[in-house]
């Protein structure tokens, strides 16, 4: 009989042709989807050319190439990399190449187009590939050489990670979302709290959490050092799949007697909207306690919080209010679809009336690339996922991580604020 397995172990066993796997096993898994962006793809393509016998990719339908980081191209160097990826997509007849204007940020684009489903194995040349665990997939980020080998073979070697169960219990307060739950979790276990491991989320606090919030949480599981973060598949996940046209997937469930390296239980009923202070995502505090920190910029969007639900939360706060005179607010819908929805739902108008920039989808400012790079001494409140030194620009600039509600409220207040600390909006 097969040993009892966690959700991650179940998926890895099924994709390696084994009855069971255990933490520490090194196995080769078949991949269902391989993703790269213009930065990781350019190096991967160069390495792919060095593999003897690999003239064609293993399956042009199972590769997704998404210009997203420094695009629309910010300079000649980036344009060169984007051209490399575009030419490769044509040469190899890659089915899922998302040109600028028809895609957006990879981790927003792939799920909304029905490419991600429960039980899949997905790797990406981007550390936030963990996002897809929100829908019950095994998804992890790798470097470009791993991507090159996967382009050729459709498989990857993996050391089976020990699983860590994160049980989030309790009802959530107003304005508390997925971002607050994951920041709280990272604050509790630390940025290496799940190193080499799989974070498996459970508990009553995530039961009603929308897929967008689960994507946010799985996205940041890498910020605790995890190989992957994964959610159980329930009716909310299946409804999401139906809505985006994802069919033919397999639902796995963790065995009741599966072994976990550790179990972390967090009472979420008392959590307030969170902010992670520089220079690590584990430096979490309540937004309401940080009113003395003034900000120069607010960024709302990215692979962490660039979905329509995030845009609606920001708009809920910004409606009838104005961005503080000393703040630049930059709203970046995560994909063309989200962008269009912002327009049709009237959110774009709210953002513009409030005095925000509404940008085309890009990872830009999050990686210190473009569209909102910071100067020395500037502070930015941001719905992104990293607040490392120099992440968004000058080495002496600062990034404060939070969710859309607090980012929008802080943009209005001119300092870090919980939405409950704002005055009433003016009549519109």
């Amino acid at each position, binding site marked *: 009989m097969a040993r009892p397995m966690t959700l991650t172990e179940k998926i890895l066993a099924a994709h390696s042709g084994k009855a069971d796997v255990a933490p520490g096993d090194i196995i080769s898994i078949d991949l269902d989807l391989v993703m790269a962006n213009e930065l990781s793809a350019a190096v991967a393509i160069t390495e792919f050319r060095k593999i003897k016998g690999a003239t064609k990719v293993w399956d042009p339908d199972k590769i997704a190439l998404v210009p997203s980081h420094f695009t629309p191209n910010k300079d000649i160097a*980036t344009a060169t990399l984007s051209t490399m990826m575009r030419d490769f997509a044509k040469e190899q007849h890659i089915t899922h190449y998302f040109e600028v204007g028809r895609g957006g940020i990879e981790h927003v684009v792939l799920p909304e187009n029905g490419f991600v489903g429960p039980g899949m194995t997905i790797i*990406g040349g981007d550390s936030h590939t963990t996002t897809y665990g929100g829908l019950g997939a095994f998804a992890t980020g790798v470097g470009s*050489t791993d991507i090159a080998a996967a382009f050729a073979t459709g498989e990857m070697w993996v050391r089976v990670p020990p699983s860590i169960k994160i049980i989030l219990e309790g009802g959530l307060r107003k304005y508390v979302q997925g971002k607050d739950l994951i920041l709280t979790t990272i604050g509790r276990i630390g940025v290496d709290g799940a190193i080499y491991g799989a974070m498996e989320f459970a508990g009553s606090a995530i039961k009603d959490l929308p897929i967008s919030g689960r994507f946010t949480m799985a996205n940041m599981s890498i910020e605790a*050092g995890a190989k992957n973060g994964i959610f159980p598949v329930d009716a909310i996940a299946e409804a999401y799949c139906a809505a985006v046209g994802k069919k033919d997937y397999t639902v796995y469930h963790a065995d009741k007697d599966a072994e976990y390296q550790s179990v972390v239980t967090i009472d979420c009923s008392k959590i307030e909207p969170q902010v992670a202070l520089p220079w690590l995502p584990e430096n979490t505090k309540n937004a309401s306690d940080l009113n003395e920190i003034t900000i120069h910029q607010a960024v709302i969007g990215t692979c962490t919080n660039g979905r329509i639900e995030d845009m609606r939360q920001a708009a809920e706060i910004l409606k009838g209010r104005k961005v503080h005179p000393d703040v630049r607010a930059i709203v970046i819908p995560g994909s063309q679809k989200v962008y269009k929805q912002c327009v049709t739902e009237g959110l774009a108008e709210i953002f513009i009336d409030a005095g925000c920039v509404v940008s085309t989808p890009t990872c830009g400012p999050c*990686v210190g*690339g473009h569209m909102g790079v910071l100067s020395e001494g500037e502070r930015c409140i941001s719905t992104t996922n990293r607040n490392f030194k120099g992440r968004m620009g000058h080495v002496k600039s600062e990034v404060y991580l939070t969710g859309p509600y607090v980012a929008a409220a802080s943009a209005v207040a001119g300092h870090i604020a919980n939405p409950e600390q704002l005055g009433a909006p003016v009549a519109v």
Partner: protein
Amino acid sequence: MILKGTAHKYGKNVDTDVIIPGRYCNLIDPVELGKHALEDLDANFVKKAKAGDLIVADTNFGCGSSREVAAVALKGAGVSGVVAKSFARIFYRNCINTGLPIFECPEGVDGINDGDAITVDADNGVITNETTGKSFKATQFPKFMQDLIAKGGLLRYAEQRLAEKKAAKEGAMHDRAAT
């Protein structure tokens, strides 16, 4: 392989953004990348580092982004290896794949100070602090990874897998033809 150089010691959670900041991630050339290695952690690193020097760091070295250029930038700056208490997993894979020798050795990290002269017997994972005369043994790589490195890295492994798959396919076709 013997690595020999001065230790440059850093703390916990040295992330890939400080190893090579995002603003340089559209560079590919190792030498160009190397000019900016560790720029946002230690602006003097590139000036003081000599070819062959080693990085010694605490836990979770290389956390953050999947950017393979982080490993490439260190190599480009002349770094011959990294000794740390633990490595972030993507960086760990990237080092194996790009040929930057890494050594997990908590005792070694505690037994090495910034500026010490270090020798590493990479094949046997023995780290010697020449300044103090003390030696430390690094955690062994799992056998699969040792074989992967011995074969010449991931791309050679991929070639082998492609050949095996081709042979299996041809074998299956042959079997079908025979029946």
